[in-house]
């Protein structure tokens, strides 16, 4: 299996924020943290587009490169995860991430940020699969159940695609060929390099 990837088809996204709601509900993400959000480009101008953005699980993840305590790791399927027991909440990953994915609960003493939180591609964390600790720290583990991230699975217009990168790009390529134009798979070159 190729690495897991996200792709948001900006021609289809209608900014309903269903993905944001699904994510928050599935993982019981606390108030103030959004693992996924919808952004609008060229707001109010011709060519306005909406994009659903979260951690893209980059091939050469900049968050991993800058983490001073090396709390990040990549699974065999290319999902970038982190260990909250190791995280010191320094915020370097937030500055390094081109997608603004890392989030902080801001509940620590003396203005500390708290442990970083981000999209896990619905694959939990290093704790035992389906354990209480995993659910509390990282959210639900759908990947271990053979299910894809809920944000993509419940996208009404199927704008948000998730899964094996080869299949995701094939679906997108088919769409572009069928409709005769594409929006350029925003963020792919940033996250996965020129090859995709």
């Amino acid at each position, binding site marked *: *299996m190729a690495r897991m990837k996200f792709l948001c088809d900006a*021609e*289809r996204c209608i900014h309903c924020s269903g993905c944001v709601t699904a994510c928050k509900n599935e993982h019981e993400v606390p108030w103030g943290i959004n693992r996924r959000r919808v952004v609008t480009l060229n707001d109010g101008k011709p060519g306005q587009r909406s994009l659903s953005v979260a951690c893209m699980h980059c091939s050469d993840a900049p968050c991993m490169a800058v983490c001073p*305590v*090396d*709390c*990040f*790791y990549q*699974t*065999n*399927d290319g999902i970038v*995860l982190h*260990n909250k*027991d*190791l995280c010191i909440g320094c915020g370097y990953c937030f500055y390094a991430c081109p997608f603004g994915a890392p989030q902080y609960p801001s509940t620590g003493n003396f203005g500390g940020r708290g442990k970083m939180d981000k999209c896990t591609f619905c*694959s939990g*964390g*290093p*704790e*035992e*699969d389906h354990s209480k600790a995993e659910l509390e720290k990282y959210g639900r583990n759908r*990947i*271990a*159940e*053979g*299910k*894809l991230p809920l944000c*993509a*699975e419940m996208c009404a*217009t*199927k704008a948000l*695609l*998730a*899964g*094996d990168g080869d*299949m*995701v790009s*094939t*679906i997108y*390529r*088919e*769409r572009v*060929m*069928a*409709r*005769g134009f594409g929006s350029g798979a925003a963020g792919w070159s940033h996250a996965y390099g020129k090859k995709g």
Partner: protein
Amino acid sequence: MKPLAVMLGLVLLVGCNADERGHVVCLEKGVYKGKADTQISDATRTDLRQRIALQSEGPARVATPPGMAVMPSGEAAATGRIAGQKF
């Protein structure tokens, strides 16, 4: 001397805090030293592939020729499109 001893004692007691125990204190640059994650099985990967294929269903499929497989082939032809349809 006494306050110093008290402070040292407090510092040592903080180390007994449940949250502080088991922390990785010896770091090696670029090496993840936390708990290892479980990898997904081949059967789960097969399930995931089937779920991915479902994502190609929807409005795009309405316009594809009837003989076309559900699994994305990467060879969608311009024929079969509804004239002028844009989605």
